[in-house]
């Protein structure tokens, strides 16, 4: 989230698209009801299904899954055509006026430079024209036909309301009503918030869905303001923490990136990461990258990370491919190239697409370790459960070790919520049976491995032998110790940069925050963006002061938000070029002539003059990007693409399937279905009664939603002779499931490009362990392909067929 959950109460318009906040985030959704009750805010829902969120909305418009870009491009075009743009904001705070290279263009659904063999673009033309001074050439009058604004208008031209209806199946009048309501938020005194989740990310072009809305929000002037923003509703109480702490194969902590094979030494690595400003006087905060990176290396390897060994840069593995994401790992496992797999707090058998492939992949492992508080299907993947898990147990030789862990309520620690708040929690109970904290288990594995490396050596034991492990009890680091390490501390006395005779931070003391980190090895810090979480003031994540002066929704005394306890990112954009709030009644910050003051921690140097320094300090431009240069693999503007499995052809290029640059493994190509064999558009989602695959282990949740089902329209039910509550079989090119049918008015066929499209809704949550009735998940059916930029699987749009059937059978004893 750019903003916070509590800030949603400040909005005038909530747009829930690509998510179902009431269903999947009922507690956070309270802030929508607050906005409605206190500000008269309106709620719009755009979704293939009439959801629980839609049931409390002011306006609902249906959309075919996977066509959000066309819809949003249509709204952007509507706003521009109807002069509903926050012009002053857009001109000053985006790159609209920047001039783009001549070669760049878009035709037949593709940008310049496409290579069908490599499934990749040559992105050299996707860039700005730079002047002799190294800065971007601009035209503040927006007259130059090659400026970003004019290229954007040209790009959006095809997305008329008629085209939106043709692609999305959204009736024109409903689209126009939504566009009109959204466009009203171009007023500096009206704001809109975008609440989205996996409905946007789980597409082969998920990142572009989100970009399209971010661009719309920039045109409307809604980023950095109260009640505005791009608010990703994270699907798991600590999934924000997962990405922040770099638990992705291409990331280190705090969005520092893993080196690749090209980064032969530290100097080379740094040369592509310390971004220089592209406009005069801009902050370009990543210029501090080296401080964060060296401090990270010191946190990892202490005294073994020294200037003369490149700060132990070679201890970090170097990527030979863009990422070892979950799809690639399971593809490698499927190919028999993985020996062992440690599966911590994860249920891949039901979480990753193409379940049959996952089963086969896990069956090729020598060993599998699961660490989980619950009996997961993954831990039991070898067990025959009749139709529910039809494996031949004797043929599976994988040795499985189940290590029971504690659950969140049995341990101290912090959870990072969607709004970037690190909230400390305390153990509320003692662990049952043999359950151990994850930290204990990992420590045991580490200590035993280190001992083996010490005794037996190995190809390169140094990173293991030299890892710092400075905990009171090496067998079990405490949550507090880890939090302090993440905050960072001074390793030698740090002298004050403005007065070298004074000690700023004494050796051994916690740094105040990341502004005190150094690149000379005198500081260590586990995760720079979190720094400030546990400093000499104490555990700031444990703060529980709920005062909120002037009811702004900031709650600065409650927990700790990264970075620097800032609650709204880009908050300098809440004020105009003179530093006055766009909406005085919703002030966040104000320039008092010498510094920024207000309700939030300024997202800019406190003394940076408003007319000089742009609000988007993490960007080299200082502005936000309507045109992303070559930073995204699938294009600098969001363009309509169809899912890999789509009921209709791409209207811009009927030959094109899916995202033209998504990675597709060879064995998966044959497993993609076509609409003649699989005519129905399937989508997957969560239900409020359950949380992932956890709560089916709980009797109460199981009673409230006991059994796996799929949802279809009354029209499709009639066509297929399916009765409400009857058994159906649903199958795709990759698998087959049996489910109860819920026949509902909440799903209606959509008319797309002249033909009716029937939607089949498939909730997750069921498996073959736990209290609920045994069932299946959508992953038995979904395709093994991900987003071109981040590899999130395409769970929200694929093709299936459906027929009436009999009940699935349990295993016979």
């Amino acid at each position: 989230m750019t903003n916070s959950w509590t800030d949603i109460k400040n909005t005038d318009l909530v747009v829930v698209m690509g998510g179902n906040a009431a269903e999947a985030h009922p507690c956070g959704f309270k802030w929508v009801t607050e906005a409605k009750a206190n500000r008269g805010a309106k709620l719009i829902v755009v979704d293939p299904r009439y959801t629980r969120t839609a049931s409390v909305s002011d306006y609902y418009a249906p959309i075919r899954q996977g066509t959000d870009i066309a819809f949003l491009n249509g709204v952007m075009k509507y706003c521009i055509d109807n002069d509903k743009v926050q012009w002053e904001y857009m001109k000053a705070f985006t790159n609209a006026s920047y001039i783009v290279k001549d070669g760049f263009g878009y035709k037949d659904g593709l940008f310049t430079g496409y290579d069908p063999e490599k499934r990749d673009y040559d992105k050299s033309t996707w860039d700005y024209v730079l002047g002799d001074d190294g800065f971007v050439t601009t035209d503040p009058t927006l007259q130059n036909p090659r400026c970003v604004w004019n290229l954007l208008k040209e790009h959006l031209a095809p997305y008329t309301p008629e085209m939106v209806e043709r692609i999305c199946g959204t009736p024109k009048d409903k689209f126009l009503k939504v566009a009109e309501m959204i466009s009203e938020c171009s007023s500096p005194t009206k704001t809109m918030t975008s609440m989205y989740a996996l409905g946007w990310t789980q597409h082969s072009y998920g990142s572009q869905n989100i970009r399209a809305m971010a661009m719309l929000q920039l045109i409307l002037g809604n980023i950095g303001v109260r009640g505005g923003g791009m608010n990703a509703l994270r699907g798991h109480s600590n999934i924000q923490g997962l990405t922040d702490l770099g638990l992705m194969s291409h990331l280190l902590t705090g969005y520092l990136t893993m080196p690749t094979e090209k980064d032969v030494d530290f100097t080379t690595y740094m040369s592509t990461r310390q971004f220089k400003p592209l406009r005069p006087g801009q902050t370009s905060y990543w210029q501090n990258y080296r401080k964060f990176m060296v401090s990270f290396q010191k946190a990892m390897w202490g005294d073994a990370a020294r200037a003369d060994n490149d700060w132990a840069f070679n201890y970090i593995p170097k990527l030979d491919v863009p990422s070892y994401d979950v799809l690639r790992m399971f593809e490698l496992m499927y190919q028999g190239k993985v020996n062992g797999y440690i599966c911590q707090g994860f249920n891949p058998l039901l979480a990753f697409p193409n379940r049959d492939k996952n089963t086969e992949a896990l069956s090729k492992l020598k060993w599998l370790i699961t660490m989980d508080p619950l009996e997961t299907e993954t831990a039991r993947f070898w067990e025959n459960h009749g139709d529910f898990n039809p494996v031949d147990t004797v043929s599976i030789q994988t040795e499985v070790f189940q290590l029971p862990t504690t659950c969140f309520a049995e341990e101290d620690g912090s959870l990072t919520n969607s709004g970037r708040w690190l909230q400390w929690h305390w153990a509320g109970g003692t662990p049952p049976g043999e359950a151990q904290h994850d930290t204990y288990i990992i420590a045991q594995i580490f200590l035993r491995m280190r001992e083996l490396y010490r005794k037996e050596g190995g190809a390169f034991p140094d990173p293991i032998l030299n890892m710092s492990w400075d905990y009171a009890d090496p067998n079990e680091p405490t949550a507090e110790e880890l939090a302090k390490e993440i905050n960072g501390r001074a390793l030698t006395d740090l002298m004050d940069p403005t007065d070298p005779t004074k000690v700023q931070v004494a050796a051994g003391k916690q740094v105040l925050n990341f502004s005190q980190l150094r690149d000379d090895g005198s500081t260590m810090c586990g995760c720079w963006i979190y720094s400030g979480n546990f400093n000499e003031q104490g555990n700031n994540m444990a703060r529980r002061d709920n005062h909120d002066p002037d009811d702004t929704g900031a709650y600065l005394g409650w927990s700790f938000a990264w970075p620097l306890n800032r609650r709204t990112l880009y908050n300098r954009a809440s004020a105009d070029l003179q530093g006055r709030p766009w909406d005085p009644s919703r002030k966040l910050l104000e320039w008092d002539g010498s510094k920024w003051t207000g309700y939030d921690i300024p997202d800019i140097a406190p003394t940076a003059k408003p007319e000089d320094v742009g609000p988007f300090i993490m960007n080299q431009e200082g502005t936000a990007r309507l045109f992303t240069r070559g930073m995204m693999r699938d294009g600098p503007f969001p363009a309509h693409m169809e899912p890999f499995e789509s009921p209709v052809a791409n209207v811009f290029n009927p030959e094109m399937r899916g995202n033209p640059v998504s990675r597709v493994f060879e064995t998966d190509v044959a497993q993609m279905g076509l609409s003649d064999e699989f005519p129905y558009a399937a989508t997957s989602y969560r239900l409020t009664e359950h949380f992932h695959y956890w709560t089916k282990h709980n009797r109460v949740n199981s009673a409230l939603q006991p059994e796996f089902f799929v949802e279809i329209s009354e029209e499709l039910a009639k066509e297929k002779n399916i009765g409400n509550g009857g058994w159906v079989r649903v199958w795709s090119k990759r698998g087959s499931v049996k489910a109860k049918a819920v026949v509902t008015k909440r799903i209606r066929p959509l008319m797309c490009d002249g033909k009716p499209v029937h939607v089949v809704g498939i909730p997750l949550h069921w498996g073959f362990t736990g209290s609920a009735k045994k069932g299946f998940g959508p992953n038995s059916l979904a395709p093994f392909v991900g987003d071109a930029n981040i590899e999130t699987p395409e769970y929200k749009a694929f093709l299936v067929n459906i027929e009436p059937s009999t009940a699935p059978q349990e295993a016979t004893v």
Partner: protein
Amino acid sequence: MMDSPRTAVSNPPVQPMESNLTERDLIRRSATSELPTPERQLTPVAKLIDVSKCIGCKACQSACVEWNDTHPEIGANVGYYTNPHDLTEDMFTLMRFTEWVNPETDNLEWLIRKDGCMHCADPGCLKACPAPGAIVQYSNGIVDFVHENCIGCGYCIKGCPFNIPRISKVDHRAYKCTLCSDRVAVGQGPACAKACPTQAIVFGTKEDMKKHADDRIADLKSRGYANAGLYDPPGVGGTHVMYVLHHNDKPHIYADLPDDPKISGVVQAWKGVTKYTGLAAMGLVAAGAILHGVFGRANRVQPEDEENAEKLVDSAAGHREDA
């Protein structure tokens, strides 16, 4: 200290406290003709369920199960989101989902109503109950079942205009929402209201709840719901569980919520008869129930029981047509 909690969202008192709902606060007691007048009048309380704010998350159902420590069975899907499919002795409250196409706009509306005991000011269940002290009403409005006095005859179901109580197949006693009388007695609001993430369920004095409803209705009217209103049906003397409905002109669209609930004529007559010959009649029924209990069978109301009861009523007060 206040005699009843004013909200469900505040945290409970941390000190143990005496129950504030006692025998002396009863204003009605089933099959009991002479009840001492309470020395004090507790502030009437109410739970307000704003259907327009409800997202159907079932947190209320979950909280109800947890607080009352019931064990609803894990059933099957029969084509609806309503689970279990009806109120049971283990499920005192239930989200009922209705897909309704508004004929005026042709738009679908997904109406989600939390069903459960309405805590009528004029409780039909209590009036129908022949077992002394099995159903009681406190001066704050809460209608509660006292299970040790229940004979499982099922007359309360007959008497209830909302079809709420359910007889346990295990102990043959009647169960329903207590409005968390055990929580309210010690300064806490009902568990469902405490758990509700959108505060669609709120709790307080009946007066405060009516005021809150007024604000909500004004908001709904501003959003085009011209018939938004408060459901506090006069036919049962008003209720201590009230709804804000977007379409208060047709409550029946919300999973058959009665448009104009009334206590059945039979029960009204029964109420009359208790004043004269009721005690003897109840003695008979109660004895029958005990026999049933001995043989371990559910004490359902049989057609002949019904007939006998009506005969008794007729003989005592003269036959009346059910209005």
